[in-house]
Structures are given as C-alpha cells and as structure tokens.
C-alpha cells in the first residue's frame, strides 16, 4: 500500500495553498510515496542506534535565546519604496483581494 494517496496529496496542496493540476496530483503522489518510503528510515535509526534509550529531539544546533533591543526610535523602511514593490497598493497601504466569503 502506498504511503500517500492522490487524495492526501490534494489535501496537502490545499493546506499548502497550491492550486495543483490533476496531472501534478498524480505525479506528486508517486514521487512523494518514493521519498517518504525512503526517509521513513529515521524511525528505524532511532530504534537501532538509540539502543532503547530515550533520545531527545534537536530542533536547532544552537541553544536559542530571545534577542531584544532597547525600545528606541530608529529609521524604518521608506513606505513609498516598499509599496512600489507591492502587486497592488492604494492610499499608502497594500491592496489585497477580498478576504471574507460571499455569504
């Protein structure tokens, strides 16, 4: 049985905000199945190399700490320069498509 089906890929595409074509859904289902089949070895690795010990996860090579700066005014990006790069702008704001549903 494949690790991942066409329907699951369609669900992932929705979550990922990708409007995939039917051909892409089929193609990615095949490829992701191969990749997942291969990377699933990580569970086996933990069992074999961990020798039954509880291995803590590492999310980052460095110990992460919050970095703050003094709350003082400093120059920010020029609004005109930033908005010049926007797909659409209006009244010194980003103009976006409708964000609420029809109903």
């Amino acid at each position, binding site marked *: 049985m494949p690790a*991942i089906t066409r329907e*699951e*890929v369609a669900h*992932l*595409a*929705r*979550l*990922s*905000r*990708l*409007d*995939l074509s039917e051909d*892409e859904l089929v193609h*990615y289902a095949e*490829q*992701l199945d*191969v*990749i*997942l089949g*291969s*990377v*699933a*070895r*990580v*569970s086996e*690795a*933990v069992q074999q*190399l*961990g020798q039954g010990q509880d*291995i*803590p*996860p*590492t*999310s*980052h*090579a*460095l110990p*992460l*700490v*919050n*970095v703050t*700066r003094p709350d003082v005014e400093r120059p920010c*990006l*020029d609004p005109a*320069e*930033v908005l010049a*790069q*926007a*797909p*659409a702008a209006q009244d010194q704001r*980003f103009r*976006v*498509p*409708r*964000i*609420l*549903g029809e109903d």
Partner: protein
Amino acid sequence: MAFDGDLTKSTAAALAAAIKAGDVSATEVAQAHLDRIAKVDEKVHAFLHVDADGALAKAAEVDAKRARGEQLGPLAGVPLALKDVFTMKGVPTTCGSKILEGWRPPYDATVTRKLREADVVILGKTNMDEFAMGSSTENSAYGVTRNPWDLTRIPGGSGGGSSASLAAYEAPLAIGTDTGGSIRQPASVTGTVGVKPTYGGVSRYGLVAFSSSLDQGGPCARTVLDAALLHAAIAGHDPLDSTSIDQPVPDVVGAAKLADVKGMKVGVVKQFDGEGYQDGVRSRFHEAVDQLRGLGATVVEVDCPSFDYALAAYYLIAPSECSSNLARFDAMRYGLRIGDDGVNGVEEVMALTREAGFGPEVKRRIMLGTYALSSGYYDAYYGSAQQVRTLIMRDFDRAFADVDVLVSPTTPTTAFKIGERVDDPMAMYLADLCTIPTNLAGNAGMSIPVGLAPEDGLPVGLQIIAPSMADDRLYRVGAALEAALNTTWGHPLIEEVPSL
C-alpha cells in the same frame, strides 16, 4: 609598475595588492571582469543579473579613495559574484524563482552591507536552484547553468551560478549559501574552494530563508586564502540575526597563511566510502589523505554510524522548515500575484499565485514538509528526524574528542550530465550525502579540489569538517593540502579548466 598577467585569472589577494599598490585601478579590474562575463556568460549562464553600473560606480569609489590616500581594506576593489538569494537594495533578487521576478528589495542583507563596507565590487547576482533547493541548478526558473569543465554537465547546486562564475574566470570571489551542501558540492564539481562556516558565524539577515536551522552563507573562491579573506569580511556577530553567534571570528586568514598540519589528527569518516562512490573520487580522495599523512598529520578512521541516516533526516527537517518559511510568499506585499480579478478571494489568489510562481521541486518540498509536520505523522517523521539530529551531533562530539578535523569526499561522484537526475529526486538528493551531517550539527565544512577523476577528467573535491567555531582548522588543513597538491601538479588545478 603595471599589473603582470591576466586580471581575470588572478587571485583576489593579488588583485587587492595590485590595486593598493596602484599597479592597476579598481575600474580596470571591474571592466576586465565585466568584459569576461560579456564574452563567456552566454555559454555558462552563471549570472541572472549583471549590475555593470553598480560595479563600475563602486570601483570608481575605490579608485577615488586611493587617490585621496585613504587606507584600503584587504579586498578593496576585488570583484565578486553574489548568489541571488541575498537581498541587495534596488537590485533584482529572484532566488531563481518566478514568484520573485522583478522584485527589487528595499534593503541590503547584512552580507551585502559588509561586502559594500569592505569595498568589494559586486558584479551581479548568480543563478541557483529555486530557493536553494537542489544540487544541480537545474531547478532555477531562469534556465540551467553549465559547468565550465564540460558544458554538458551541471555546476552543482544550489549555488551553481557562484561556482561556475569562479571556474569560468568571471569573478575571483563569490558568495554562496549552504543548507545541505549548496556551497561545498558546487565547489567540488567545479574544482573550486567553498566553505560553509559554523552555523551562526555569518549573518542570515537578508538571506531569503529556506531552512532556517540549516541555512548558512559562506565564501567561494579559487584558492583557500581568497576564501579566508572573504570569510573574514562577511563573518561576525549581527544583532539583526537572533541566531548569530556573539563571539570573535576565528582567525581564518592567519590559519590559511599558516598552512601547516604537523601534529594535527585527521579522522577519515568510515561511512563516506565504498559502494555508491565513483572510483576516481575514491582514488583521488585517498591520495589526498596520504598527502596529509606525508605533511605530518596523524590519520585515523572514525566511525559515525548515524551519518547513514543523515540524508533521510535532512529530507524531513529541511522540507518541514521550508513549508513554513515559504508561506511568506502569499502574493500580498511583494512578488507575483495571479488571479486578482475582483472575484477571486484572497486564498484563491494565493493558491493560483503559488501554483504559477513555484517550480516542481519547491512544490514537492512544501508538500513533503506539510505532510511530515501534520498531526498523526509528526512523531514518526519530523520527531524521529530530530532525534537522528541528536545522534549525529553525538557522533560528531565523540569524533572531535579524538580528532581535530574529519575528512571525506565532498560528494560521491563528479559532475553529472544536465538532465540525468531531474526526474529522480532521490538520485538528485544523493549528491548531498556527505555534506548534510555538518548542516544538521551546525559545525563548519570546506571543499577543496584534490584532482581530476581519471575516468572522466572532472574535478574531485575533498571535504574537511571542523567543530563549531573552529573554522580556522578548515583553512589550516585546506591551505596545507592545497600547497602540497599545487607542488605535485606544478600549478593550481583550476588552470586545467578548458578555455571557453
């Protein structure tokens, strides 16, 4: 005194010295490189954007500084090719993606700022796999880059534009980024030098993020000393990057000049040899290890069993982080927007834009990461991958308790043919087999050329790995080996690259 020799074939160190001495002007140096790009880049396609005006303006500034008698920095007036993943104010920055076509960032990355402050002349932006995802530069939305050693072959990736620009003599220095090997593997297959500094050693501010816990900018050059000079120019603490290490930069330039391995202990990684490794890669690698022994290093074999699982862990961790990082490309504030017809809602516009703007590898990784992070699969995939990361760091700790550096081939094969692996993601991913553990552990790695594989005449790279914040050891070993090999060959390997 006039400059003796071809400006484009000179090292960065020699160019800087000649400019400082007044033997050549920075403007002449910049123009020679722009002319070279105009002549050969049609064949190589290392650059996505050439900033001739900006480069000449900077060069003129350096010449004016010198004329005023001001002190020039160690790389003043030296041209450089910048990977198109770093922002540069007002200059197009695409990351090799259609979703950022035409974007001109309103700010400089810290690396870009430091280069400007060092009076480095930025020639332009180099081609790359889209958002640095790939090992061949074939995933760029703007066409392939060709390897100057053989134009039918890949220049490595994701930083194939940067590595190719060096091997094609279009620039003496380049900047890359390395998330799983994207500086070292391109260096290996183009016969150049590439360094992934310690994670946190070079600021990521303004480096468009792919996998934030792994991404690291670093220097690319044709010699170890040039790489060290560039490393010193871009490294150091940056308050704008919360993962930037607040410690002095290791003395990489001093180490490159020392170039001595006497008394050092070198570990050969047992896992990175044997089946799957090209014969010529293995033979050149082992000859180079013999050279190290001859230079006075002690060589031992080191067993790192977790490294067999590094690739699998990486292809869960990197896509997971990428699926989150690339959510920022939402078609709202910059970049491409598709389907904004007054009828479609914001989520439809996002999905249409991302579908049109991202290429296949990026989509594949976003979905893979979304899957690995989803409830029900998280523990088996992402959770286990993070545990493997712990095991890899433990193997490194154990190894570095005994040896000063580790060595391995940089990548299992020489440059493969363009098109050979594009439809087989797993075969493509194998190119990063030996480089990935370093990214997962956050330590430092370098690739230097150690010869040509007899069967195909293509460059082979040797990887050196050092503990975190011991980047200087890379340069010490790299420079010693480079000097010994140059003596053996009678000239630097790069001089054997075919003329274009």
